């Protein structure tokens, strides 16, 4: 009897406290890329700004670790769960458990193949749209002049590669003056981007025929910039460069006039997620099932040094 009383009192004391300071569990994939590290850093700082306690779990690229982490979050009774899923399938059971415990789950950066009622919303970028933004920029930049484009693709078969290729192709489809003459994979890495660009330059008469380069990520473009310089051409002038991601080093390159434009894949997926959560906690508003993050375009007219300063310590 006495125990029950203590429990009731402590519950009564704890409840309002928990209503004030919310706890969110975040199951992150790992830290396989600089972007991923930046996403983690931004999520942590967003949580601090919102006054939310963030419980962070690094899954080291393993789904079973993520499932364990989510079960742990449910057992601890967190108020919401952020999940950056490592794979798309196999989430039904654990998401069902979270639903039974009335804990809203928000997917960050990637979607899952699970019934839509098992999660609250997904905050992701539209990777096809990123390619479109890059293509639209190029169309505007060349005007009506004929332009031969070389493309550095990401890892073959990756969904980002397919989408960014598709978006760019769709954007330039109505511009008959722009043609993709060569397209090869640079595996999303600087080294491979440089090597493939070297071969493009040689195959196209020392690069004189190439008017622009579209790279599926900034790292490959940064490698290609070095290859262009070594071939005696001026990157950003002789060959226009547009890429996707907007990593700090790319902002530096644009600021130095060695590249022309980059489309941002924002690491701030948690910002919109916290907004959705706040609205839900306030009056139960349900967000739409998909929140698309902005794909901002940075060109030489943007304040690239400010972007660099803002991003350089995020872990890119």
């Amino acid at each position, binding site marked *: 009897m006495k125990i029950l009383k203590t429990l009731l009192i402590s519950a009564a004391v704890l409840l309002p406290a928990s209503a004030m300071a919310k706890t969110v569990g975040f199951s992150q994939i790992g*830290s*396989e*890329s*600089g972007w991923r*590290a930046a996403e983690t850093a931004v999520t942590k700082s967003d949580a601090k700004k919102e006054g939310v306690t963030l419980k962070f779990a690094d899954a080291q690229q393993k789904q079973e670790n993520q499932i364990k982490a989510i079960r742990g979050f449910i057992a601890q009774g967190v108020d919401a769960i952020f999940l950056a899923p490592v794979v798309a399938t196999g989430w039904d059971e654990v998401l069902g458990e979270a639903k039974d415990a009335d804990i809203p789950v928000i997917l960050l950066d990637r979607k899952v193949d699970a019934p839509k009622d098992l999660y609250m919303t997904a905050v992701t970028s539209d990777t096809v749209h990123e390619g479109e933004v890059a293509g639209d920029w190029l169309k505007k930049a060349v005007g009506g002049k004929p332009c031969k484009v070389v493309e550095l*693709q990401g890892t*073959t*078969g990756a969904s980002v590669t397919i989408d960014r290729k598709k978006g760019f192709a769709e954007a330039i489809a109505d511009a008959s003056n722009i043609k993709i003459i*060569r*397209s*090869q*994979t640079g*595996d999303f*890495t*600087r*080294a*491979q981007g*440089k*090597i*493939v660009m*070297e*071969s*493009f330059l*040689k*195959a196209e008469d*020392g690069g004189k025929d190439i008017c622009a380069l579209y790279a599926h990520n900034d*790292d490959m473009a*940064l*490698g290609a910039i*070095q290859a262009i310089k*070594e*071939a*005696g051409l001026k990157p950003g002038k002789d060959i226009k460069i547009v890429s996707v991601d907007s990593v700090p*080093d790319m902002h530096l390159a644009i600021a130095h006039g060695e590249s022309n434009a980059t489309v941002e894949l924002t690491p701030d997926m948690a910002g919109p997620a916290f907004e959705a959560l706040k609205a839900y906690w306030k009056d139960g508003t349900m967000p739409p099932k998909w929140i698309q993050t902005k794909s901002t375009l940075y060109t030489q007219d943007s304040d690239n040094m400010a972007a660099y300063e803002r991003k350089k310590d995020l*872990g*890119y």
Partner: protein
Amino acid sequence: MILTTLRRVAPQLIILALVLLLNFAMFPGFFRVEMHNGRLFGNLIDVLNRGAPVALLSVGMTLVIATRGIDLSVGAVMAIAGAVAASVVTGGSDWVVAVLAALGAGALCGLWNGVLVAVLRIQPIVATLVLMVAGRGIAQLLTHGAILTFNDPGLVRLGGGTILHVPTPIWIWIVLAVVVGLVVRRTALGLLIEATGINERSARLAGINARVLLIAVYLVTGLCAALAGIVVAGDIRGADANNAGLWMELDAILAVVIGGNSLLGGRFSITASLIGALIIQSVNSAILLSGMPVEFNLVIKALIIIAILVIQSPRVNHALYLLRASSGAFSPGASRGASTPRNTAPRSAASRTDHTTEEGRP
């Protein structure tokens, strides 16, 4: 000496010539070499330059494989060496210090592998797997998971600069190969390595200190990997711990195999492995020049490599040898000129007896 080497590497040279001709057929300007900004510029130079990391790795890998071992960790050691060099040089030290630190890290990794294999007697494939997996993690710790960029002209010159108009990586791999080649062939060291690879116990009984020899061989491989790591990092002016040297151990092993060296240890040829590395790079170059959709990359590479390995297969060679002998075109004089059957015939005979005993036993 030179003549025997030539005869040994003749099949590899023929294959290299064929792959280069394939490149030429794809892109007529392939053999054109020009001068751009005081730097030799052309596809042929690219093959030599881009082949540098695998060529450097294959020097060490040849020795390890000759001792009947294998080193899966070289790709990860490249990442570690690049990360060490980048973090030392961004810490404000001179590039010479950075290079020495990176080489030291490579030697340490090699020593670790050597001790696991030679002292603790762990099978090489398992022993080096440890560092293959953990090494990349160590490199990521050093760079905090990001690409650590630097602009130090000394370090950049090692990967992207030139000496006498020729890209520095080409000099590095040629000098390393000549030095290692002279050391193993002008002394008895090469013979001792082969003896250890063929039968370690007999080698020990014959008075060879196999333990020290094995450790030394893994150490040299670690050093080669560190050099490759420095070259790759200097090339992109940054240490990319996630991707530097990724899967490159497999290319290095392939180069050794294309070079006609047996994975069962014993006789080895560094020259042949180097030509193997150049063949791999020429195949890569052909794929890039072909302009085919990227989905075909790996298929084309696989087809070319299967063709190369089939041509080198002892069985195929033996069949050709028998075919020629039975058709009467075969004479002792002709066989000396045709180096392929002469070189592989003894080994193919040996493998044949192996098979017959195996098949005969049950």
